């Protein structure tokens, strides 16, 4: 396999994508199990280590689309190159049904503000499971293709805006990036793509 093949590929939609990925690293923070990761993040935070840095430890980024290093003076973070095979193997999208059932379609939120769009498109609470699956499928392809926009990075973690298409309309959905290529849905509608 040539150098070009190692760096460039084609995704499920026939789009050219970058295969040049990195894993963000902060020393002493494991990717899993989650309970150990949380204990160690909390323990070193007691001694002044940056929660923002440790929140992105273990996260996968396309090299050309990652946070700027260093995140702050005396930052301990590094990146290491990972194969695209690792990204393909590990990446997964977690789209909780509660984001639709308990947010978009919950009576207290339904039809209000930007989430009114879902009502205007004819979706109801009965569509929650189908939407959950559709979001997960589309977002995973986009993320593995490097088609994400970096949004806010803070102590909660790195937020991503990932394009999703429904009823012929394309817009951003909001996701939280977690270790080992996991993305977790935070908000079903994050704004129109300008």
């Amino acid at each position: 396999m040539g150098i070009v093949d190692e760096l460039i590929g084609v995704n499920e939609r026939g789009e050219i994508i970058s295969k040049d990925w990195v894993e963000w690293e902060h020393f002493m923070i494991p990717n899993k199990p989650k309970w150990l990761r949380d204990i160690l993040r909390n323990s070193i935070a007691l001694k002044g280590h940056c929660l923002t840095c440790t929140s992105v430890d273990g996260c996968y980024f396309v090299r050309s689309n990652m946070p700027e290093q260093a995140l702050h003076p005396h930052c301990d973070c590094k990146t290491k190159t990972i194969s695209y095979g690792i990204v393909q193997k590990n990446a997964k999208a977690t789209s909780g049904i509660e984001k639709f059932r308990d947010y978009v379609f919950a009576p207290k939120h339904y039809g209000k503000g930007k989430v009114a769009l879902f009502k205007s498109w004819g979706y109801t609470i009965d569509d929650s499971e189908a939407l959950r699956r559709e979001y997960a499928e589309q977002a995973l392809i986009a993320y593995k293709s490097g088609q994400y926009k970096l949004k806010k990075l803070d102590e909660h973690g790195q937020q991503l805006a990932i394009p999703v298409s429904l009823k012929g309309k394309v817009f951003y959905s909001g996701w939280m990036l977690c270790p080992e290529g996991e993305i977790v849905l935070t908000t079903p509608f994050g704004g129109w793509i300008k």
Partner: protein
Amino acid sequence: MKKGSLVIIANEKTRKTLGIDKEARGVVLKIRSGKADVLFFNPKIVGEYIIKEVVLCDLSLENEALPKEIEQDLFSDIESVYQKAKGGFTSLSFKNGDRVQLVVEEKRYAEFGIHKNAIGCVVDDTVVQGKIEVDFYEPEEAAAYDSAMAIKIEDLKII
């Protein structure tokens, strides 16, 4: 089991009495006379922790351990660790899915178009540095901010 060991409470009655989650692990700080002082972090409020005395036979040792550097760091000023411990976990008034309203007008929010009385949904109720994540959807100016925003819990009310 020794100082720095990672443990889980195996006795359900003890665990419930102490108000600790079933899957919560703790760090052993001291062992004396058949009991251990164990530090438990609050899973919903990052940085908050309690220290509880637990009978050794109620504890089960985990295979994983604290890295030496973290252990040394933690125990280098153990008195300070004890001083900052809470008596019990703070219970949260907000949870995922709550409809909330911003009750302050602050520059740190206004610069992103989010003003007093903006309405949104709690999308991550884990408290980090006193803040939770809210996705604002009313009015239009607040909805235009295309990410969830970290908001101080005292700046919000449930509606």
